[in-house]
C-alpha cells in the first residue's frame, strides 16, 4: 500500500524550500522554478501511479534560521517526508538535523564544497572534483598561475579556496591574496579588494562570491577598468541568473565551470529551455542550479514510481544507481556516496550574456566528495576541447 494519508487519488505531498527574497533569492528563485516545472510536467503526464505531486511551498528568505523552522514545520505539522531545497551550505546544514531526526529525504540541487554524506540527502550539484579541478586547469592553461581569491565569508568559499590554492601551488603557481566579504555585502565592501587587485595584478581572479554580492563584485571590477582578456574572474557559482542580475557589460569575458549551461547543445536541453521560457517568461534563463533542481524531481519521480511509497528507506534504495536523461546529459546517483555523476564544462560569457562552452567532458564524471588532494591529472583524459 502507498503511504501517506487517504485514498489512491491523494496527491504525493512534498516540501519545497527555496528563497524568494534575501541575498540568494536571485538563484534560488530559478531553483524553485525548475522544481515547479518538473512537478507540473510530471503531473500533466498523469502523475505517479495516477496521483499528482503536490508541492508544499515555504519561502525561507535566505535566512538559515527560517530554513530550519520551515523544515521542522514541513516534517512536523505538514507531515511531509521529502524536501527539495537549499542553495547555500549554511541552509543545508540548518535543515539537516531535522531531516535526519525524522529520517526524511532532502534533495539538494546545488554545487557545494564536498565532505558531507548523509543517508538522508541526495546531492545533485557538482562536487569539487566535477568543477574546481576543471576550472583550475583551464585558467592556468589559458591565463596564468597568479591567482587572487575572493569569496563570501562562509564555509563553501573557505574549502573551495583551499582546493584552488593546492591546485595552483602544485602547478608552481601562486596565490597572491585571499579575501572575504560578508554575505549581505554592500558595493562599497569591494573597494579595498579592487584596490588590492589593481596593486597585485593577478592573472586570474577566483571568485567564490555568491548571491547578490556577485553582481556587486563584477560591476566593481568593470568600474575599475580591468580587462577580462588579461585578468578574468573565474567562478564555480556565477551562472545565467547572476549574469542577468549584473548585466552583460559587467559579465562579458568572465569564466565559469559548471555541469550545465543554458547553451548546452542537445535536443533535451533545447526542449527544457523552451518549456522553461514558456512557463516563466521569454526573458527567463535556466542555469546549473535550476537544471539540477529540475532533474532531481524526475529522479525522485522515477524512484517513487518504483516504490509507490514516500518513506525515505525505500525511496533511497530505489534512488541509488538510478539514471535519468537530464538536459546536461545522462546523470546517475552514485550508490556509495549519494552524489551525482555529472558533465563538467567550462563556459565563457559572450557579448550577449550567454555562456559559450569552451570545454566539456567527453564522459560523465563520478562524484568524489571526500577527495582531499585533487590533482590535474585526474580529469585531463575525461575533458577535452570542444571542437568549434
Amino acid at each position, binding site marked *: 500500500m502507498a503511504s501517506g494519508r487517504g485514498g489512491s487519488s491523494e496527491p504525493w505531498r512534498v516540501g519545497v524550500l527555496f528563497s524568494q527574497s534575501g541575498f540568494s533569492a536571485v538563484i534560488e528563485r530559478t531553483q524553485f522554478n525548475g522544481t515547479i516545472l518538473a512537478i507540473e510536467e510530471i503531473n500533466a503526464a498523469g502523475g505517479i501511479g495516477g496521483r499528482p505531486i503536490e508541492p508544499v511551498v515555504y519561502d525561507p528568505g535566505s535566512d538559515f534560521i527560517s530554513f530550519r523552522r520551515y523544515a521542522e514545520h514541513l516534517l512536523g505539522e505538514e507531515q511531509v517526508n521529502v524536501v527539495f531545497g537549499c542553495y547555500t551550505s549554511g541552509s543545508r546544514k540548518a535543515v539537516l538535523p531535522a531531516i535526519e531526526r525524522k529520517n526524511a529525504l532532502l534533495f539538494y540541487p546545488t554545487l557545494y564544497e564536498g*565532505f*558531507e*554524506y*548523509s*543517508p538522508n540527502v541526495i546531492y545533485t550539484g557538482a562536487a569539487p572534483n566535477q568543477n574546481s579541478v576543471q576550472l583550475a586547469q583551464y585558467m592556468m592553461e589559458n591565463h596564468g598561475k597568479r591567482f587572487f*581569491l575572493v569569496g563570501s*565569508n562562509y564555509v563553501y568559499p*573557505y574549502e573551495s*579556496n*583551499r582546493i584552488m*590554492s*593546492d591546485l*595552483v*601551488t602544485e602547478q608552481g603557481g*601562486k*596565490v*597572491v*591574496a*585571499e579575501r*572575504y566579504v560578508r554575505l549581505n555585502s554592500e558595493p562599497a565592501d569591494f573597494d579595498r579588494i579592487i584596490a588590492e587587485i589593481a596593486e597585485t595584478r593577478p592573472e586570474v581572479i577566483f571568485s567564490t562570491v555568491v548571491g547578490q554580492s556577485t553582481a556587486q563584485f563584477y560591476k566593481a571590477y568593470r568600474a575599475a577598468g580591468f580587462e577580462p582578456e588579461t585578468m578574468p574572474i573565474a567562478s564555480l557559482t556565477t551562472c545565467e541568473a547572476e549574469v542577468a542580475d549584473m548585466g552583460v557589460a559587467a559579465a562579458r569575458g568572465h569564466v565559469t565551470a559548471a555541469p550545465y549551461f543554458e547553451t548546452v547543445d542537445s535536443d533535451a536541453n533545447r526542449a527544457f529551455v523552451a518549456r522553461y521560457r514558456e512557463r516563466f517568461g521569454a526573458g527567463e534563463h535556466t542555469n546549473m542550479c535550476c537544471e539540477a533542481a529540475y532533474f532531481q524531481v524526475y529522479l525522485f519521480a522515477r524512484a517513487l514510481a518504483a516504490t509507490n511509497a514516500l518513506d525515505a528507506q525505500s525511496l533511497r534504495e530505489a534512488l541509488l544507481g538510478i539514471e535519468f536523461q537530464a538536459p546536461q546529459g545522462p546523470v546517475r546517483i552514485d550508490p*556509495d*556516496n549519494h552524489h551525482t555523476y555529472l558533465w563538467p564544462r567550462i563556459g565563457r560569457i559572450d557579448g550577449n550574456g550567454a555562456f559559450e562552452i569552451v570545454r566539456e567532458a567527453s564522459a560523465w564524471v563520478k562524484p*568524489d*566528495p*571526500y*577527495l*582531499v*588532494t585533487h590533482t590535474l591529472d585526474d580529469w585531463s583524459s575525461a575533458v577535452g576541447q570542444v571542437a568549434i
Partner: protein
Amino acid sequence: MAGLVRGRSPGAETSEALRNIRSLRVLVIHPHDEDGEELLRHLKRIGCQTQATWPPPKQLPPNVDVVFLSLRQVIEAQQSFPWKADNPPAALVVIVDYENPVMVDAVLKLTAQAVIGLPIRPFGLLTNLVSAHALFTRERKLQRRIEKLEEKVKSIKRLNQAKEILMKNHGLDEDEAYRMIRSQAMNKRMTTEAIAIAIINASEILGLKQD
C-alpha cells in the same frame, strides 16, 4: 571574525595528515552488524584502505595506521586484546555505546586518541580519524625524541664516569681525560661511548678508583 577567516593563510598548503588520508590503512575491529557496515562504508567513502575483522585478532596485522575498536564487544568477548598502551602500534579510535565509569576507564587504559559513539554517524568520522592519526604520529615522534634524549643523558653520564676514572688514576685534568678517550676512540674506530664503557668495565674488574 577576520581572525577565524584568515586562519588559513593565502596559499597555505593543506596539512600533510589530511593530504595523505587516502593512503591510511585502517583496521576495524567490530562485529559484522549494521554499525560495523556503516562504519566501513564511510571509511571507504573517505577513501581509506580499510579492512574489518571480528572476533578481535590475537595479533594485530602489520602495517596498520589506525585501529577502530568496538570497546564493549571486545570486553564482552572476554578475549585478551593485545594492545600495548604505552607503546601502541597504531592510532586507536574507540567506539563506545556506554559512558559508565567502567567503559571510560577502559578507554583511558587503552590511551585512545579518539572516541566515537554508537550508533555510527558519518558526520565527525573524518575529523576524528585524521585528528587521531595526527595525534598518534605526534605522540610517537615525542616518544622517540624522549628515548633519544634518555640515551644521550646516559651516554654523557658514562663519559663523565670514564673521565673521572682516568683523572683519579692517571692524574689527568678533565680536558686531558676527554682527549685521551677521544684519541682511543679514533684509533680503534669506536665511539667515545664504547671507549667510556670499556674503561668503566675495566675499572670495575681491576678495582680502580671510581671516585
